[in-house]
């Protein structure tokens, strides 16, 4: 097997989809020579030319709307927002336009648009370059939301997102961008709405989002034979594979959900609600949501690290739940 970095997997997905389908093009700040903010568009300008690799001014609302409008005509734009935080300046185009136009037209139009953006902490960039905003998009009917945690999923899910006829907010983890993993050669697809059981276990279910997946696996590994931990990565929040999560909780009777976003109003609460509606009786212990603190992200490294759960926090919580 070859090794590939997460960012290279995204690049490969884009390259393959652009080769396969002429209606696919990419849009964003620094899209051309620099290859996007972190290199997902690297080499695409040389291969596909300026028309299909559109470098824009710093105008998120304008170029996100460009993507929506082009999608209305059947093209399949992939818009990059350099940091997920910056999508705030384009929220009308995402929430009121992309998410609503198909519905409001009585299904006369479709919006096959992908909006990619990196999220999360770890690079010490302070409160306007670090947020985990996935809950906002999960909350808005009309959007799909993907959060790949692995190199394999980054490529497979992005290809699915590009082929989907609905707008997809594709949230990438910046700290995983340059992590490499072994993946096969050639093409693969990861369908939406299928969670991945990353590790089987029988004592407790840990549902982890994106950057929390490697931390949950690290915690599970550290607990060893002491506690058998099942780790589930939902991979997409909309659609959400609640059945896979419920099946796991029915087996283990215990649930911990971990994400970087603050717990208040976060995705964890929504997943827990759905689990309780379906199998309240199967919970043997109070479920726990482990998330970020209710604070803007600070710059200083030790402060930043204190804001989101680490593997040690997951271990401590699991021990509490098991008791």
């Amino acid at each position, binding site marked *: 097997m070859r090794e590939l970095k997460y960012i290279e997997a995204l690049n490969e997905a884009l390259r393959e989809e652009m080769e396969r389908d002429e209606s696919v*093009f990419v849009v964003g700040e620094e899209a051309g020579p620099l290859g996007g903010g972190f290199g997902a568009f690297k080499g695409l300008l040389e291969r596909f030319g300026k*028309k*299909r690799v*559109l470098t*824009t*001014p710093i*105008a998120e*609302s*304008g*170029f*996100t*709307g*460009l*993507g*929506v*409008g*082009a*999608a*209305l*005509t*059947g*093209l399949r*734009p992939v818009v990059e927002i350099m940091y997920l935080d910056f999508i705030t300046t384009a929220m*009308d*185009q995402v929430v*009121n*336009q992309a998410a609503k*136009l198909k*519905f*409001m*037209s*009585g*299904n*006369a*139009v479709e919006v096959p648009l992908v909006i990619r953006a990196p999220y999360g902490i770890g690079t010490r960039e302070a409160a306007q370059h670090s947020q985990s905003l996935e809950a906002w998009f999960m909350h808005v*009917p009309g959007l799909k939301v993907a959060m790949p945690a692995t190199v394999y999923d980054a490529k497979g899910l992005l290809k699915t997102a590009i082929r989907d006829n609905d707008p997809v907010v594709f949230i990438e983890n910046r700290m995983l961008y340059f992590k490499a993993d072994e993946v096969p050669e050639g093409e693969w697809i990861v369908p939406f*709405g299928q969670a991945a059981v990353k590790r089987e276990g029988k004592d407790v279910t840990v549902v982890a989002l994106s950057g929390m997946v490697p931390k949950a696996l690290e915690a599970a590994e550290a607990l060893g034979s002491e506690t058998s931990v099942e780790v589930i990565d939902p991979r997409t929040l*909309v*659609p*959400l594979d609640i059945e896979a999560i419920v099946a796991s909780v029915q087996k283990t009777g215990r649930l911990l959900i971990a994400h970087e976003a603050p717990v208040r109003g976060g995705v964890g609460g929504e997943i827990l609600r759905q689990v309780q509606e379906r199998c309240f009786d199967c919970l043997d212990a109070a479920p726990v949501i482990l998330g970020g603190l209710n604070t803007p992200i600070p710059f200083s490294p030790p402060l930043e690290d204190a804001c989101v759960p680490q593997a040690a926090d997951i271990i401590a919580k699991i021990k509490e739940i098991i008791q």
Partner: protein
Amino acid sequence: MNNEIALRALETMCRIRMFEETGKVRYNQNRLADNFLGAFHSYIGQEAVATGVCLALQKNDYVFSTHRGHGHAVARGIDLKKVMAELRGKVDGCSHGRGGSMHLFDTSLGFLGGNGIVGGGLPLALGTAYSAYYRGTDQVTVCFFGDGGASQGTFHEALNMAALWKLPVVFVCENNCYAVMTHVRETVCIPNVADRASAYGMPGCVADGNDVGDVYGRAEEAVGRARQGGGPTLLECKTYRIDSHCMMLPDIRAEKEIAGWKEQDPIQRWEKHLVENNIAGKEECEKLRAKVAAEIEEADRYADESQYPDPAEFLKEVKCAN
């Protein structure tokens, strides 16, 4: 403008006017019967703008409308019955009752929606214009917005990028003097919104928005330029909104001001022009009015008889969507 187009212009303006008059009556009747049907943003007084601009378009061009969009929909030629039914939330409406007055669509005419967000359509228009360039078609996009929309940040972003890439789009600012109840002199400190065009590197021009001949002439030039690869234009049409912002809000404007603009009625002005220049006789104009009145009556009846969408069907669809 040839005589055939001149007559079509009168007919279209009459169609918009009568559509709005009937629409208003039905809206108010429903309201009195406790059937509140959202907002009704009347286009009365602005008929020359939608008419003049849409007459300059081809069938496969794209149009983005606004919250005040009935006139655009009628001028573009969307089936009156479907528009009237949509205003009443009926299943046969052009958006099957999902969009209502502010969200009229007809993809067969490139009519990609009204918009409930002021200035929300400007970036979308950038997208269809980019798509035409991308696919190598000769389609032109027209984006209507108001003097209110011209104050949104999307105006700046869309005009800058459209000029930068010489995209085939005409930005039509319908300056009807009011954003809700705030006069444009309270929101813009230069004489014309169109004066901003030069700052983006595109041509800008001002049309008498109550003179359909002037609007058509300037729109035709802008559309032609866009179609031939000459890039975007900012066309400002100065007009006046005769009715209040919507039927929900009282009017706080000076009666004298409204009366003054009523004397500039675009339909009366155009009819006078046609008669004085022997393009049409009084009788011909009356015949045309009668024909349009019959169409409106039919549309009204259709909207009445059309059913509401079935909530059970809708719920089935929603339940499938995870």
